[in-house]
């Protein structure tokens, strides 16, 4: 009775908040519902088979891809608005009504609690890297928190074998499926979170190293203990995902970049746990075109504008890989959700942008200007997206923005999804 009331209130408050134009209501709805029934998330999870998706980068996109893949089996509850803490999970499940499945994106810090409260069957661990230092915990500490959350727990794990931090969290658990999901950002995993030893990586051109996992991809191992790259069951080769049986699945994603093919592989691995055949799920992945504005394409004054979100150094490197060789607007803010310290700009090597026309905007464009000067990347400063569009000739414009700058641009575009 209490739960039924809480569910009803959660939905109503979320809807009211949405109508009032105060965001999508995911957070406030869940908060109010949990006041009425503190165990609401647990009650709403009962009877559902749930997968959790967590990591520093790619969790919103992977959640969407996983929900699309599980859609083969029936309706799926999911927090597709990126509200990734327990209040958001509560609202997502309350709104969904009776669905047999749930796929929830989880903020890294909340993984243990959400595992506890939802009794999830599967958890996907994507990657860990530095994100907003003035708020977040050290990366190695986060890896330890994940390890404490998943070890000794009856849960299946889908984990990235290419990230030493993720591997440390999952290694030794009996139920791990390893995905070669890649790692472009090494600078937070040179030191083993277990023993403090140096992590050795295969050099360019070298596919494996002595004592490593022996897998035919970029190999790594700790020089101080036995932590090493596990042999992955799921791999990516070119445009294809290779499943544990060795079957190649060509994937045609609307979403750009190698990192999204890796996210697709993770989604397929999670879906496989629920009995979805990769061949059945692959066509559904191609239907995902944008995720809460990320990767969205918008026509503005004859320019095809595409939006890419980059929240931290690792995310920026991925975005440079995703963006095409076209005029590119970079927008950087430093409001609360972005972290107030812009020092991270010097952790990103912007040199891949050399040769492209680069425009900059955002609250902290001056920090970015100094960074790009030092990096030898010429740029033009513009006040906003409209000015950038006006400055480039008809054709393409790639936009890469950090969190609140991205939301500002979405607002300029009437909250494009």
């Amino acid at each position, binding site marked *: 009775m209490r739960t039924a009331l809480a569910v009803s209130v959660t939905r109503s408050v979320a809807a009211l908040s949405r109508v009032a134009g105060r965001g999508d209501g995911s957070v406030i709805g869940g908060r109010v519902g949990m006041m009425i029934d503190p165990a609401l998330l647990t009650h709403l999870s009962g009877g559902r088979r749930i997968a959790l998706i967590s990591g520093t980068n790619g969790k919103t996109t992977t959640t969407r891809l996983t929900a699309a893949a599980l859609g083969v089996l029936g309706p799926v509850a999911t927090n597709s608005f990126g509200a990734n803490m327990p209040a958001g999970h509560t609202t997502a499940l309350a709104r969904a009504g009776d669905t047999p499945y749930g796929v929830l994106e989880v903020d890294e810090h909340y993984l243990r609690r959400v595992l506890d409260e939802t009794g999830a069957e599967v958890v996907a661990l994507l990657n860990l890297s530095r994100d907003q230092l003035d708020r977040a915990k050290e990366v190695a500490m986060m890896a330890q928190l994940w390890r404490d959350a998943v070890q000794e727990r009856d849960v299946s794990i889908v984990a990235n074998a290419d990230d030493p931090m993720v591997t440390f969290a999952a290694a030794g658990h009996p139920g791990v499926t390893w995905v070669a999901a890649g790692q472009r950002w090494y600078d937070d995993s040179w030191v083993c979170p277990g023993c403090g030893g140096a992590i050795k990586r295969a050099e360019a051109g070298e596919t494996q190293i002595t004592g490593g996992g022996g897998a035919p991809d970029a190999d790594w191992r700790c020089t101080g203990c036995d932590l090493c790259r596990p042999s992955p069951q799921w791999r990516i080769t070119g445009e294809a995902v290779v499943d544990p049986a060795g079957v190649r699945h060509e994937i045609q994603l609307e979403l750009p970049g190698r990192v999204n093919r890796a996210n697709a592989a993770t989604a397929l691995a999670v879906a496989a746990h629920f009995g979805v055949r990769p061949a059945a799920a692959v066509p559904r992945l191609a239907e995902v075109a944008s995720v809460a504005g990320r990767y969205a394409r918008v026509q503005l004054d004859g320019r095809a504008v595409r939006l890419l979100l980059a929240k931290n150094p690792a995310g920026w490197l991925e975005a440079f890989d995703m963006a095409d060789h076209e005029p590119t607007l970079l927008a950087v803010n430093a409001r609360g959700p972005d972290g107030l*310290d812009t*020092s*991270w700009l*010097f952790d990103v*090597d912007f040199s891949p942008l050399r040769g492209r026309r680069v425009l900059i905007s955002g609250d902290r464009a*001056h*920090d970015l200007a100094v960074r790009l000067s030092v990096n030898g990347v010429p740029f033009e400063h513009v006040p906003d997206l409209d000015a950038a569009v006006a400055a480039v000739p008809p054709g393409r414009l790639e936009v890469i923005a950090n969190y609140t700058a991205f939301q500002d641009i979405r607002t300029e575009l009437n909250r494009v999804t």
Partner: protein
Amino acid sequence: VSLNWASLDRNSPDWATLDRAAPHRPSRESAVRIAWVYPDLLSTYGDRGNLLVLAHRAALRGLPVEAVEVRSDQPVPVDADIYLLGGGEDGPQALAARRLAADGGLASAVNRGAAVFAVCAGYQVLGRSFFAKGQKCGGLGLLDLESDRGPSRAVGELAGEIDERLGLPTLTGFENHGGRTHLGRDVRPLATVSAGVGNDGLCEGAWRGSVLGTYSHGPALSRNPALADLLLCWATGRPALDPIDDAWPERLRTERLRALHLV
């Protein structure tokens, strides 16, 4: 373990040059040699930026630069001109202090008159003692100061008027630390605090000779180009460097100080 010195110039693809340099010994006698000490232990957000800014500003003056990242399992070179130390968490900070003390290279370099620029945890390590994980740890004693824990974490914009003997404009940076630092008689404060906390809410950083420490991230040298040039002057023995176009750093400085209502 031999060190990989890398030549940096205007066309070098940023730190990729450092990471992938073929091993070679420092060659050009005239080059400004910069050693980044223990980036595996003392490196937080953007600390690499101080090295990049120094290399960039030297290159714009036509000064060749050779730089090296010294990992904590390598000996600290005694023949660099500028030593950089960054911020870090408690555990790595305590480890860095022990290894630097045992190595002795940094102390020799300071006795020789080399320039040192240390930020946050690295700044505390230069002092006589600091607190890490609730324990008092011995520092290197290269600056006469002691650090302990403050009542709360200092996070936010930091600004102050720099010691007039250094002849530099206002210091601007971003601080993020739980320590409070108490200066002895043998050092002078780097700046008088006008916003933020710094050492103790009154003064910020410390310097003596050519050894300089600060709580400013940002990175500090990207926001304080005159401070970067001072280090390059110390390193080269030149009284001044050719002026360069600092329009963007100046705009950044004005914006940051205006946000604090200081200009």
